[in-house]
């Protein structure tokens, strides 16, 4: 009997322990000890075959240079990345190194999920070679000034770009658009449902409001808030712009499906020949090259607004950050520094069609189309749009609230006035609360990019 009982207990214990055992690998060893191999995890938040290939190569080179460090790469699709990282942060399981979207800092820094890189950055040998845009705006204005610390090393710079089907425009005898008005006109003219062709790649979901807001800021002079922290969405011209832009969808100049489109679908919509114009960042050049013949498409500078000025979003796409809970912070920084050497950064920028973070000293290093973007940004008429704010609620606003509101309007369940009021109220409340807590913060400003 006793024997039986003991067996029973043993089996029970075994069951429970096997069910609850965690894979406890490399627990809390100090990094950098010579004969210990440390493993750091790296998360790419916007995977594509090209990126994965690049990172595999760079990781192999890094592991060769640092035989005691192993890098394990993971990926998460862009549309789910913020949620995944937020949950990992809350459960203290963030990867050691990750791609950080600058707007997420508003959520992750107050939550204490990220490790400051200030000391490492300040002592970094390549610091002097950065372009003034990166060293002044990305590092100081957008990080140290706001958060008292540096939290990410930018991977490269990108700017908004307009992808157009040259051949469609030629067929329709239309000039390539240089202003928003011409874009709206072309959206209508290029649409031909019988051929399954639509003028504009509309984005209705997963950060779709960014696209609408890009047009709204062209009529608000790039501003996002009044001096007292009230959202510009309450301005009458913002309402007009909102209606005008969403009419692209309502009037059928975009596929009906596009109310559900996120990043992937809108890019596919363009590359598969369903839509004629796409507002995306420069990294999409690679995807377009791979699927469309060169003579069929091109990238044109960002359109100018009614006041003849160009209000453009540009900045670091992502940055490399280290998590607060990382057990191998030294090895993590080593990896980031390796990713950020001038030659690796150039390789990365060229592979991803983005703008490098370093001054172009040798010349001729930047690929053809990218020089065009740099010139556009350096154009006297170009200004950087003010951002949406730096309050912690921004994550909540961006990751669900804003698109749901716009969708209600697109489906005629809500008036445009009500939609902008709901959006504006959220932003105003959050921004004013933030300004109360940070009296010297002020509102986000329109700035002049300095790319040289």
């Amino acid at each position, binding site marked *: 009997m006793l024997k039986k009982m003991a067996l029973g207990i043993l089996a*029970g214990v075994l069951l429970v322990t096997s069910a609850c055992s965690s894979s406890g690998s490399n627990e809390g060893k100090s990094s950098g000890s010579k004969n210990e191999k440390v493993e750091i995890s790296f998360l790419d938040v916007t995977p594509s075959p090209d990126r994965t290939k690049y990172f595999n190569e760079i990781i192999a080179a890094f592991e060769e240079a640092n035989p005691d460090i192993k890098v394990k790469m993971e990926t998460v699709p862009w549309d789910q990345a913020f949620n995944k990282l937020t949950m990992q942060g809350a459960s203290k399981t963030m990867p050691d190194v990750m791609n950080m979207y600058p707007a997420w800092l508003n959520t992750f820094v107050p939550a204490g999920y990220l490790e400051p890189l200030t000391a490492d950055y300040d002592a970094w040998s390549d610091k002097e070679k950065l372009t003034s845009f990166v060293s002044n705006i990305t590092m100081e204005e957008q990080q140290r000034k706001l958060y008292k610390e540096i939290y990410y090393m930018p991977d490269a710079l990108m700017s908004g770009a307009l992808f157009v089907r040259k051949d469609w425009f030629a067929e329709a005898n239309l000039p390539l658009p240089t202003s928003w008005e011409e874009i709206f006109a072309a959206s209508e003219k290029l649409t031909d449902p019988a051929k399954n062709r639509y003028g504009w790649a509309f984005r209705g979901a997963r950060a779709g409001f960014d696209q609408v807001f890009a047009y709204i800021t062209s009529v608000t002079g790039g501003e996002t808030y009044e001096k007292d922290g009230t959202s510009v969405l309450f301005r009458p011209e913002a309402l007009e712009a909102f209606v005008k832009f969403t009419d692209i969808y309502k009037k059928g100049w975009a596929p009906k499906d596009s109310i559900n489109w996120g990043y992937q679908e809108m890019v596919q919509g363009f590359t598969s020949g369903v839509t004629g114009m796409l507002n995306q960042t420069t990294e999409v050049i690679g995807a377009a090259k791979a699927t469309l013949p060169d003579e069929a498409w091109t990238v044109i500078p960002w359109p100018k607004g009614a006041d003849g000025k160009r209000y453009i979003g540009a900045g670091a796409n992502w940055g490399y950050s280290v998590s607060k809970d990382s057990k191998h912070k030294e090895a993590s920084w080593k990896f980031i520094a390796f990713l950020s050497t001038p030659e690796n950064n150039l390789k990365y920028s060229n592979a991803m069609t983005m703008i490098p973070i370093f001054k172009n000293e040798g010349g001729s290093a930047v690929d053809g189309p990218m020089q065009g973007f740099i010139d556009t940004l350096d154009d006297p008429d170009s200004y950087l749009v003010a951002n949406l704010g730096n309050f912690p609620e921004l994550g909540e606003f961006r990751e669900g609230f804003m698109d749901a509101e716009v969708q209600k309007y697109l489906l005629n369940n809500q008036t445009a006035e009500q939609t902008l009021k709901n959006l504006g109220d959220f932003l105003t409340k959050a921004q004013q609360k933030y300004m109360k807590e940070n009296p010297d913060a002020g509102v986000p400003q329109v700035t002049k990019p300095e790319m040289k």
Partner: protein
Amino acid sequence: MKRIKSKEPYFMLAPSFLLLCIFLVYPLLSSFLYAFQSYKLTAPNDIAFNGINNFKAVFQDSNFGLILKNSFIWVVLTVAGQFILGFILALALRRPFPGRNFYQAIVFLPWAISSFVVGLTFRWLLNAEYGPVNDLLLKLGIIENKIYFLSDPKLALYTVILTMTWYGIPFFAIMLLAAMQSIPEDLYEAADIDGAGIWSKFWHITFSYIKQTIILTLLLRTIWVFASADLIYIMTAGGPANSSSILSSYMFMKAYSTLDYGQASAIGLFFMALLILFCYLFMKATKFEKAGNF
């Protein structure tokens, strides 16, 4: 020794109880607590009790009426569709015919597939831009314009219901077929001698024999269908603008898209109360304890 022996069952049960506590009781209790807290993952520094604010926010949510209505439509149509079609399938498979085993294996296949695969497959099939369904219908001249199965707010919910129905037919078919095969054959022979028609044979023998199974499977299936959010999440993510959200998928969205665990837990509690109420009424209405006592 004797005393230990009398405790033996508890020792035997302890491991499973422990696991149940870890994976069921603990999450249940913590979600009960979250429901009364402001618990947003996006603001981890502001977690605090806030009384019934979450419930207020949920019930005042402009989508809530729509979602309750959707949940009702979803449960009724899906369960009814699965049950009727499953019943027909079971009746068809009752009598042997050449190739029955092979056919049975094919039609029971959906039940063995993960809902993710089902959801992704149907999402691709019904896609308006490159889905084969639209393409075939257009080429056969059955429709003039593309049907936006998943992005039309009027159709999205019904499209998912259709998929879910297809997915669940085998469950009823398997269960009812098993029950039918336990009916003694001589009952039918006796009925034939008495001159019973096909309809009265079905009603008096087949149906009354498997009544118990029907009641049990309907109850189980209703609970499952009501609580299943996975297909909706994969196919439409509740969109466009919540037109295809039901309570369970909305709760899922609240937890994993807006990361508002407090409100998600409040919906969860409400959801649980609804289910308990439903089960109680259902059991009362069908005399569940006495079911099958002829």
